[in-house]
């Protein structure tokens, strides 16, 4: 294995694990749910992305698994992560965990606000 390549892999791994850790750290540390929501959903995508990239590099060079199949993992993660985040945010809003601004173009009344969480 090429030294440079090795260092590159190590760097990718370091970056990946760093972002994963930061995401979790944010999750643990931040005080508000919506702030926490940013940490893992983001950092993890890049973090896991880096690790997967490293894995592709590693297995391709070692020849035990020449296909860059890990890309598929990334692809799926990129499709599903927004779904998760979207629904978690919706759920949190439904539980009134944050006040949300009134939707433009709609008169906002107290009664409406409730109806909004469960749009008519």
């Amino acid at each position: 294995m090429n030294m440079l390549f090795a260092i590159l892999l190590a760097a990718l791994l370091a970056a990946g694990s760093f972002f994963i850790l930061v995401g979790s750290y944010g999750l643990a540390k931040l005080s508000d749910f919506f702030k926490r929501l940013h940490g893992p959903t983001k950092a993890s995508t890049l973090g896991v992305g880096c690790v997967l990239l490293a894995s592709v590099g590693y297995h391709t060079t070692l020849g035990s698994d020449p296909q860059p199949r890990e890309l598929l993992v990334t692809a799926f993660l990129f499709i599903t992560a927004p779904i998760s985040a979207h629904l978690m945010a919706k759920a949190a809003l439904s539980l009134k965990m944050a006040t949300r601004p009134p939707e433009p173009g709609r008169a906002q009344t107290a009664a409406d606000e409730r109806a909004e969480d469960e749009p008519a």
Partner: protein
Amino acid sequence: MTPESIVAVAIVASMHVVGLAMLLALWRLLRGPTVPDRILALDTLFVAAIAELMLFGMHLDTPIYFEAALIIAMLGFVGTVVLSKYILRRDIVE
């Protein structure tokens, strides 16, 4: 240090860092305080698990954990979705 050993060390270190990340997520999972927090923590655990799986595959130099990682990436969000949907509507299939 050979390139191999550098990578090997990096892999093992990364595994521990990701493990640490999982512990942080675990803390949030146990602590809450709200249900969405716990859901989020579980989601994070799943994502971290993908990384851990790939790292373990590299550590053992085997592609055998690919399927498991693929499944988590592909379907790990199911838990998050149904739990959130339960909060939203209770009847998750309408």
